[in-house]
């Protein structure tokens, strides 16, 4: 009696994690680590800035984490992870030599190519800088294709800023960096205040500018308002959104955001398309 059984597929299904080895580990803040990963078998992960993977450590669970590495590098897969639950805590405990499971990459990326020829503002709040780092590296790698490049970055306090060692290097490569914190002690000689307030203090050509924004939703809404006041319409603003994600392949239904699925139609959205939906409470 013939049965329709199939042997295990030669290429594993999309729900099977691909093993990567931790090659480096760096603590960014009290609860955030950056990990560098190499694939155990096969080629490095090719991705576009703004995409994410589903990351897992052993059996502790799987979570969507933005990729923070250089898309043009062909180098390590980089993830900056904040330890806030079982899965992320397990991931953040992984030492060099240990394994993590990776599925992906998934999602719609930052439109770096479409922004060519204009000024680009990268606006990041807190860990929101992690999904924007690949965009920054791409913009800097093709510096001549853009007008002014600006980074407006805000965090809770000076101790909670990410990639602080790199900010100077980026500034030297042509990124105008403005940093602010919500509160600080006297040793902080920089700006104290919220990110939206930085928008009015920087110079750029708003009519054609593109803005890539990532951070807590409240911060993004205030930032978009400040950008609008500065003359950047919501057509030129892109934001990275977040919802509950479990499969990454548009099958489990959890990441629905109105008429879209964040894993497939996002996480990067054009603000003008997103705006009417964000106005609906408990959408």
């Amino acid at each position, binding site marked *: 009696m013939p049965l329709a059984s199939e042997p295990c597929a030669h290429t594993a299904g999309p729900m099977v994690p691909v093993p990567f080895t931790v090659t480096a580990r760096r603590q960014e803040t009290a609860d955030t680590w950056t990990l560098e990963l190499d694939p155990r078998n096969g080629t490095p992960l090719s991705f576009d800035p703004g995409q994410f993977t589903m990351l897992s450590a052993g059996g502790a669970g799987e*979570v*969507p*984490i*933005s990729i923070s590495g250089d898309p043009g590098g062909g180098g390590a897969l980089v993830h900056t992870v*904040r330890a*806030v*639950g079982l*899965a*992320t805590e397990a991931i953040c405990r992984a030492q060099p030599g240990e394994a993590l499971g990776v599925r992906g990459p998934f999602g719609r990326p930052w439109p770096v190519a479409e922004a060519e020829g204009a000024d680009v503002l990268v606006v990041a*709040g*807190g*860990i*929101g800088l*992690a*999904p924007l780092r690949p965009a920054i590296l791409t913009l800097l790698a093709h510096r001549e294709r853009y007008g002014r490049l600006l980074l407006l970055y*805000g*965090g*809770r306090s000076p101790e*909670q800023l990410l990639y602080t060692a790199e900010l100077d290097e980026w500034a030297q490569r042509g990124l105008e960096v403005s940093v*602010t914190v*919500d*509160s*600080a*002690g*006297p040793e*902080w*000689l*920089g*700006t*104290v*205040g*919220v990110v*939206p*307030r930085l928008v009015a*203090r920087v110079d750029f050509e708003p009519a054609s500018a593109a803005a890539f924004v990532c*951070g*807590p*939703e*409240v*911060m993004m809404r*205030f930032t978009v308002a400040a950008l609008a006041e500065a003359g950047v319409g919501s057509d030129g603003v892109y934001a990275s959104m*977040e919802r509950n994600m479990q499969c990454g392949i548009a099958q489990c239904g959890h990441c629905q955001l109105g008429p879209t699925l964040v894993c497939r139609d996002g996480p990067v959205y054009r603000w003008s398309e997103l705006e009417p939906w964000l106005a609906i409470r408990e959408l």
Partner: protein
Amino acid sequence: MQGLDDLIAASPTFAGLSPAQLELIAGCGSNERFDTGAQLFSEGAAANRFFLIRHGAVALEIETPGRGPLTIETMHEGDVVGWSWLFEPYKWQFDARATAPTATVSFDGACLRGKCESDHELGYQLMRRFAASMLDRLQATRLQLLDVYGNAARV
């Protein structure tokens, strides 16, 4: 005092005032510079002046036992520093310290209060502008209060 009218008119806070009004305000003002670390005013002291930052940076701070001074907000070119001169008991609630070499136009609060009392139109125009700045800062402060980076995470 000649250049002061222009300096004041150039700032967003005082934009749109008539030349006569600008002259009135300039009459209460003077240039004042602060080196890095110099105190503009201290908590508890009499609030008789306020400052328009021409360039540099000023940190609004509050002293806390055990943690030293905490910075609440930094203010920059075009910002007005100090509101307590507007209302009784005319006492500063916070400290203000220059965090960079800072050039300001400093205004005599009592002088300006007097002019507003006798010229209500001037008073109205100034209050409107101060109210707009305060609203702006209140909204920013509320966002700071939400501590949005505290709980939000990409898990």
